[in-house]
């Protein structure tokens, strides 16, 4: 007897609607997330699809970094989105609510996997000391991972050219002047994009910090 999610078939659809208008504004972006959250709460299955398309990489990467096991990471990812669907009534829509909420669920699922591993380990050798301390250290490391991934996701969500500019500035460590030359925009514009980009990343991160605990 088996309890298996089904249908166990390969997806026929790849990627997803990650289209942000070139000139879209941050507020529109937030409105989009709010609307998506509201649709999920109302039980709209297509909202779950969109949410999966948008945040499954974040959840999966988090689980992968936390558990160091592709199979477990996949399992956790699946559990997170299924749990999100089943407990959708508990979601209070806000701009950061969706990623925050998903990361929060992922923390719990990762903890479950760790607990199961610990139980297995206990069966082999009854090592019970220091478990609490180890958990705290792990949790702190997980949180750091989660925050870095949320920042990464937030950059991906920025509308271009801001996304490219922030990426060049923070990931490739290019100077503002270099970026200005590369993207063909005035130095002042580049500077403004970098600063506003940083503010947006901060806003997203804060949202996740507040809502995922």
């Amino acid at each position, binding site marked *: *007897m*088996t*309890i*298996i*999610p*089904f*249908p*166990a*078939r*390969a*997806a*026929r*659809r*790849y990627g997803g609607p990650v289209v942000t208008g070139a000139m879209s504004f941050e507020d529109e972006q937030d409105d989009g997330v709010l609307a998506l959250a509201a649709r999920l709460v*109302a*039980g*709209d*299955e297509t909202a*779950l*699809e969109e949410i*999966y*398309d948008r945040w*499954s*990489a*974040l*959840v*999966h*990467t988090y689980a*992968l970094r936390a558990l160091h096991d592709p199979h477990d*990471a*996949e399992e956790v*990812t*699946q559990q997170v*989105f*299924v749990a999100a*669907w*089943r*407990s*959708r*009534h508990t979601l209070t829509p806000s701009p950061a609510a969706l990623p925050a909420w998903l990361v929060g669920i992922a923390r719990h699922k990762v903890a479950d996997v760790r607990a199961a591993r610990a139980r297995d380990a206990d069966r082999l050798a009854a090592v019970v000391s220091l478990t609490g301390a180890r958990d705290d250290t792990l949790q702190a490391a997980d949180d*750091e991972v989660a*925050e*870095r*991934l949320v*920042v*990464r996701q937030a*950059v*991906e969500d920025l509308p271009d050219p801001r996304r490219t500019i922030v990426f060049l500035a*923070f*990931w490739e460590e290019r100077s503002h002047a270099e970026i200005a030359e590369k993207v063909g925009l005035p130095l002042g514009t580049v500077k*403004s994009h*970098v*600063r*506003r980009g*940083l*503010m947006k*990343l*901060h806003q997203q*991160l*804060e949202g996740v910090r507040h809502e995922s605990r």
Partner: protein
Amino acid sequence: MSHADPEQLAGLALDPTDGPADVREHAETCPECAGLVAAFTGVRRRAGADALVPPPAGLRAQVLAEARTGDTSPLSRPVTTEPASRRRVPLWLAGVAAALALLAGVGLGRIGTGTETPEAVEPPAGTVVAATALTALDSDAERGEASVVQTDDTFTIRVSASELGDEPGVHEVWLINVDGKRMISIGLLASGDEGEFAVPMDLIDQGYRIVDISVEPDDGDPTHSGVSLARGELA
């Protein structure tokens, strides 16, 4: 002085020498603004993570299917919401439709054999157009087989299962679409492990090719229990 413009504070976080002198001075003395600069600095420090790793492509369909079919906990079933009821009724109707199709198929078969010309008297053996071994989901353990027999324009799915276990409940047979999004009940294995289910031909053409046997508790819920005992894809 009122607080500094956050954008200028963001500038300071990126380059402490950047920005007007009064802003810098203010940020040094105002705890709130200093806090914001520190927060921005913290965010900047967290930039640089490697690209996110998407899960395997196949997972999406699994998640959606599980969300859809496993949506049975009382908490997650708001009786008042439209989408839920819209989704559930057709599945229930599908069961009825399948049962009717089965009856119709049997009935037509009888009429057909009764009125056929002598040269067609041989049993309507039909042609096996597709078949599959059924296996457990968590292993390759054999669970029997299923085949599709075509007789004239009727498809009959013959299921011959084995070792389905003794989990209490009835065994229900489903066709799952290969798109991973749709499924339909075609009836119950009422007499043990064997069953024949007439299905409309275009179901198979539409991709309903995965035969699934579930165990269904007597809980009044017409949807798939989420517990699959055997499965195989007709080919």
